[in-house]
Every structure is written in C-alpha cells, then in structure tokens.
C-alpha cells in the first residue's frame, strides 16, 4: 500500500529532499511540510529529517520545538500516528518531549560521518515490520551530537518495555548502552541517529535503509 509521508522542513533542515527521494523510490508519496504551519495535510506518517534546524545555535532542536508544526505533530503522535525522527529529527523529538533522554556531543568531540553497523534490538515499532530482532544493518551516521544519554531509571524502563530500537555494534559516539535509536511506549514514535535514507541504493554502498522506510510506509 502507498502511504503519504509528510517531511518537515525547518529553516536549516537539509535532508528533506533526500528523504523524499528515498520514500518515492519505494513507491511512497512524500511532500514537504513547512515548519511555520499547523496543517499536516492529512498525511499518514511524518518524518522529521536531518539537518541543522534553526542552525542548531542554541541547542539542537531547542528552537525547533516551538515551531507551530510541532503542536500538530504532538497531537498526531498522541493519536498513534507514525513519526520518525532522523538525526536532527531525533534531537527535535527529545527536545519536544516525544522521546526521553537527550543527545550530547560525541565522546570524541568531533563530527562523525561514516558507514556504521547497527543491530535491531526491538522490532515492536513502526520501523520493525520487515525485520527480526538481531538483524544487522549498514546505515551511515552523520552527526556531532549523537551521544545518547538518559537517567538509569529511564534506561531500565526502556529496556523493560522493549523500546531500544537500534544499538551500534561498534559504538562510535559514546552513546549510553550503545543506543542508536529508541521509540515511545506505543512504538509509533521512533528516533534514530543513523540515516536510513542514505542507505537506499547499491550505488551508495547499502540498501539496508529500504526495509525501515518500507516498514514506515506500511505502518
């Protein structure tokens, strides 16, 4: 089935068209949602893509959470609508309180762009319909602030609730418990640092992102 995906564009977002291209290559429909509007245009799923919303000058996602569209996304998520935050989008979701924890600077204090292996820990979420726990995927990372942190209580709770979606097999950034992606309790809101849209063609070195985006389209 074909789903319509809304891809959010803040000033400073830069992965919106890559995400749209990737969704279209999987026969999904996609369109841009401008951050300054409330209207979600009746889309079936939302992606907050990577980039530097508002320049990330204050703290990643800290200004973006005040954009009008975030109010609508909040309600959409409460109603069970699928929401995926990729990289900067993950940071926005934590700032907006849709996901717990925060993303701080990489342990090496450098920006990192590289192909990374991640493992599906839990598939009980909108990205996992086509996968099995333990599946390993090659998906690029591209971030300075990807070092996930949360309180020990939140970590324990997330583990108990099967909410750790991905872990790095070789932790590149110091993330707590090797976390590369998490979801909310209902499994409809997922945040991940790696970029699945960058792993959608053999010419780019991996097609492992396709199963994740297909799962979102089928959610």
């Amino acid at each position, binding site marked *: 089935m074909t789903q319509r995906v809304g891809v959010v564009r803040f000033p*400073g977002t830069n992965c919106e068209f*890559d995400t749209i291209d990737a969704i279209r290559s999987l026969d999904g429909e996609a369109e841009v949602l401008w951050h300054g509007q409330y209207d979600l245009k009746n889309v079936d799923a939302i992606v907050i893509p990577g980039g530097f919303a508002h320049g*990330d000058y204050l703290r990643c996602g800290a200004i973006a959470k005040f954009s009008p569209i975030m109010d609508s996304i909040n309600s959409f998520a409460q109603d069970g609508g699928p929401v995926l935050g990729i990289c900067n989008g993950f940071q926005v979701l934590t700032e907006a309180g849709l996901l717990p924890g925060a993303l701080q600077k990489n342990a090496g204090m450098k920006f990192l762009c590289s192909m990374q292996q991640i493992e599906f820990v839990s598939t009980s979420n909108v990205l996992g319909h086509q996968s099995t726990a333990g599946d390993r995927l090659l998906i690029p990372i591209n971030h300075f602030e990807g070092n996930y942190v949360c309180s020990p209580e939140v970590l324990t709770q997330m583990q108990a609730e099967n909410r750790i979606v991905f872990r790095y097999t070789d932790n590149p950034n110091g993330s707590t418990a090797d976390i590369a992606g998490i979801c909310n309790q209902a499994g409809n809101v997922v945040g991940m640092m790696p970029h699945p*849209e960058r792993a*959608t063609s053999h010419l780019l070195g991996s097609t492992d992102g396709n199963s994740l985006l297909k799962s979102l389209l089928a959610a």
Partner: protein
Amino acid sequence: MSPAPEDASVHRALGLSDDEYQRIYELLDRHPNHLELAMYSVMWSEHCSYKSSKIHLKRLPTEAPWVLVGPGENAGVIDVGDDIAVAIRIESHNHPSAIEPYQGAATGVGGILRDIFTMGARPIAVMDPLRFGPIDDPRSRWIAEGVISGVSGYGNSVGVPTVGGEIVFDETYKGNPLVNVLAMGVLPTERLVLGQASGVGNLAVLLGASTGRDGIGGVSVLASAGFDESAEDTDKRPSVQVGDPFEEKRLLEACLELLDEGLVSGIQDLGGAGITCATSETASRGGAGMDVDVTAIHARENNMEPFELMTSESQERMLAIIKPEDLAQVEAISSRWEIKASVIGRVTGTGQLRILDGFDGDVLANLPASTLHDDAPEYNRPITPPSDLAERRAKDASQGPVSCVDDLLSLLRDPAWIYSQYDHQLFLNTVVGPGNDGTLLRLRNPRNGEETGRGIALSTDGNHRWCHIDPRQGTAMVVAEAVMNIACVGARPLAVVNCLNFGNPEHPEVMWQLSEAVDGMAEACIAFDAPVIGGNVSLYNETNAVDIAPTPVVGVIGMHPSLSTPPPSIGFPPDASLLLLGQVPDTHVSLAGSQWAWEIGECKDGTLPIFDLEQAVRTSQFVAEAVQKQRLLAVHDIGEGGLAVAAAEMAIDGGVGAQIIDHDDHLSMFNESGGRFLAVVGEKLVDTFLRDANDHGVPATQIGRTGGTSLNFGSEITIPVSELEFAYQNKLPEALGLGTVSA
C-alpha cells in the same frame, strides 16, 4: 591641477601605489575623494584585479563546445547533456585562515558556495585541498585543526557535502597555510543567470546579512600582502570575516526560490570588496550604471562610514537585480526565509557608479563603473629563473639513508580522520567519496531528482615538490594526476579550474614560477582537451620574505557516461593479476620531487623523471574505458610515494597482500614518474587485457599477483598488511596527539 595628491600616505595606506594613484587621477580627470580611493583600492587589489597574473592567464585554453561560461564570471559552467549544466569554481582563503583558522576556512566555504548559487545552481559538492606547515609544529597543528573544524562546522551546517580534497603538511607552508575550496553545483540549463545589471530603472536589492565592520579591506590589506612576525599580523584579525552558515543556508534557499520564480534578471554574490565589487561589476557587465544609496544598506552598527559600508566584506550577502514591479514578491520570499532585503540601488543608463547619501541626497562618489575593473592596472612584472637552477637540477635526489620497509611505513597516512568530520553523503549522490583517487557522484536531473544514469567525477590535486623542481613539467604532471584520478572512477575530463598559489609577485623568481606553471598547465589542458573555465590566483604567500614553493592546485571535472554499478575500489582482491600500466620509467629514473626524496632523503632538488604527456593521455583514456566496461577488479593511480605507497594502500583497503616481482629497491619503489596506474584483473583475462593495452599504445606489464597476508617486493622485502594498516591509520591521529587507532 597637479596629479600629486595632497597626502600620499592616504592611498599608500590603502595599498595603492603612486603610479596607481596617478592612473585614477587620469581616469577621473580630478583627484579622487577618500571614498573613491577606498573603492579603487579594493577593486585594484591583486586579489580582485589579477593585475600581476592576467597577462599570463591569457595563455590558458578556455574554450570548448561544451563550455557555457568561461573565466571571468562567478563560476565556470559546462553543458553536461539532458539540458543540465554544471557550475564549478575554486578559490583560496589562505591569508584569512593563517590569521583566524576556523573563520578563515568557514568563510572560504561560504564564499565559494555563493559563487555557485549566483549562477542559478544548487551547490551539491565541496572539495577542500589543504596545505599546512609541518605536523610537528604546534602552530601549524593549531591552524590545521582550526581549518578542518571550520570546513566541517560551516559545510555540514549549510548543508553541502564535502566529497573530497587533499591534506599536505610541509615546512614550506609554515606560517602561510593554503586553504583552497572548490564547489560544484547543478542547474537546469535554462536557469543560468549572469551577474549583470540591465534595464534602466531596475532595482538592486541587497539580500542577507547586515553589513558590519568585519572584513574591511580584506582583499587589499590581507590577501595582497605577505606575513612577517610583527604584531601587525595580529592586528589584521579584524580583516577576517565571521561566518554564519545558518544565514547562508536561508540565503541560498531564498535565492534559488527567487530564481525559480523568474524574479531575478541578474545576481551577484558579495565577496571580496563587498558592495563596491557587486555594484560596479553588475553595472559594467550589463553596460549600465548604478545609483547606490548607502543609507539604505542594512547595517550591523550605527554610524558606519560610507567607505566602511562600501568595502566591508561581511559574509552571507547577495545583490539581486529585479524589476520594480516584482519587489513585493521578492520581499515575501525573503521574509519567509527570514532574510533581510533592502533596495540599495537603481540601474541607470549613465555608466556611472554613484554613491549617494540618500537617493536624493549628496553625491559621495561618482566614477565610471567600468574603470574599477576594466581599467585596473595590468603588470608585466620582471621574470627571472633562479640563478642556481642548473646547479639545483644537477643534484642527485636518490641519496640518503635507505630502509625500504621503514621508509614505506613512514610515507603512509590515512586522511580518514579528516574527512570523517565532513558530511560527504548528503544529497544521496556520493558513489565514491573521499579517501579514494577520484570522487564520483551520481548526476541527477536538478528539475526532478531523476537519475540520468551518468556520473560526475571530481578530483583536486597539487604537488609543490614537483613544481618546486620544475614548475612547468610539475604543473603538467599535476593536471595529469587529477585526470588519472578521475579515470580510476571511469571518467574522462571535461574541464579544469585552477587555484594558483604562489609567493610574492614582486620577486622575479616567483613570476617565473607562475609563468612556467601557466605554460605547463596550458600544455596539459590542451593535451587532455579540458579547458580552464575558472580559477583564482593567490599571491603574496610568503612568510618573513620567504615564498612558498609554487603550488598550482587544479580541480578537474569529468563524466562517467554509464553509471550502473560502482567502479572498482582500490582494494586488492585475492588471487588476481597485478598490472602496471603507463609510462615505463627509464633505467636511471630520478627520485627528484618525490615524497621520499623530500621527507627521507632530504633533497629538494634534482631533475624530475621524464614525463610523456601524450602517453598519459592514452593511458588515462584506456583506464577510464576499462573501468566503464567493468574489466578491472581494482585500480589505483601511482602518485605521491610512488608504486610502493600505491600498492600498500591497495593492500590495506582490500585487507589482502601481494607478491610483486622486482621493484625491490628505493628507486623503483618510490619514484614518482607520472602517468602510471596499478590495475588488478582476473587471471584469465590478463592476456587479452595486455594485448588491448598494447593495441591502444599503452605500456602494460604484469608485475605480480595479489593474495596472502603480506605485501612483498622481490624476495627480500616483506611487510604484513596489518603492519601497513597500523602505520597508515595512526600517522595523523598520533601526530595530532589523538592517540592510537586499533588496526
């Protein structure tokens, strides 16, 4: 009236010579006022006017049927078929980066991106050839780290991938690093716009950041003079601009939207010489004049003087020429992207550039717009080859303590530590990214993102060692090296852009180097049928009156005609045949100009190995076609460090060793004869392949087999691949004090 000014110290302080003052006097038929003098001083600076190099640059080939825009515009543009055009430019930001590394490099990226979207193209790639002083020099390390962070911080945030580049550490750049930045963009051919103002009554709208006191006189005071150890260099810090990538990103999106909506008849970025340059260039290119109201310029501070507003190099600004009736729409788009837009000028038919205190106010400056660049002085500076040239060329560069294993290990360095800090994947085009020979990007239609089934290849190269010994042959070899790099990813060259980094043009020896380099570049570009479509000249790269080694850097752009599978990697596959393609070095091959001679033999002189340009053309074409036809299992060009370093990099990348016949002495391992490749083909295809090579006039010999866990040269030299890998990966992180990476 006498042509002598009342106070000669005024124009001298602005960087104008007495002769240049006289020229201005004659053009105006009166004494210029202070504002006018300031405007001439920035536009006639070496950086803006190319006054020392222009006479030589005319010798470069610049035309081909596929060239849409050649040198002289903001960027060169070529037609790549399917009604798609590609805009490309390279620039230097050497002096600002020496003073303030992070901002110098960041604004270098910002400036070159504006040159690309000025043409109507969306920038999709940046490359950064970087050169620093010795890695064991703390200040050079500080500069290197700052520059790399600046490229990373600005480029990643503005959202343009950095897909390749170079990194070189050498004594010659101590105190004067070279920070060159190349940018490339794609556009629908019909959207091509030029930086010109036409249509009397049209408006000049200043878009983007407010104008501040940063970067005043950047082109004249900073870029057009050398460095010494005085406190004055520290005082130059306010001449470095501060970059804001978020402003640039919004400006970029707004400008592309204005162009998409057809609201702009001419557009020009504001870089060196700021508003003076943008207004005078657009006016004179369009054969028009312009009235500029300095009070309309949105400024960062109150009470800025007109000369400050007119020469400030504040970043992230553009000047768009629009019809008065489109103003409301232009303002609406600007406001959506949260950028400022002020009408600062009106196009006139007079040919005069008038600076006004309010459109109806006093005339602060009034000069013929075209005189600011068309009448800039052109110098034929004295040229003298070095007096000791013959003596230097007679030296034997092969002497020194030789230990082939240790030497090879010491010549290896992995640039991954640098390029992993750059987003090199954005836009989903990067098929072959940094760390390889050439970069290969998918070419997609800028209208709808659809794949064309073709690829654009890029490579930037420079080699100060070759060019120090022989600027003419060295430069030809540099062009060949770049063409060979893109051949490894299956591409043939279409065009060249250059960044000519040289010392002080007032030194006759430097002008000799420049002249020789231009001739070498012209010869190579003609041979490869790749015209020079743009570039930049950076002079006065000197510290304490010592000039840098001549460092012409080229960027080559090429086309892969049928991109369905990625080209082969450089990594050795197991159990295949290793071939050496291209020029056969003569028996007494020279090590002169090699990395070995420079770093281990400590000899910077001698005579370069013989270089056969026509042979390099044949060989690179043959390799590009072999890659396109997927006949090769691996391929790597032989460049810095010679055959041994190339083979080691292939072994490390594949995690597989090789047995190489002969080539077991430092001469054959480390010589840098140009025009050679290492290629790997399947055992069964060797005979056919060698025959084909022979039919194409390409020397080819099987020199070994891949396989095993060590790299062996002859019977004596054996190095485990794991040992090569450890040396390779740790060279830069260790030198930069970052600890050891496990192999």
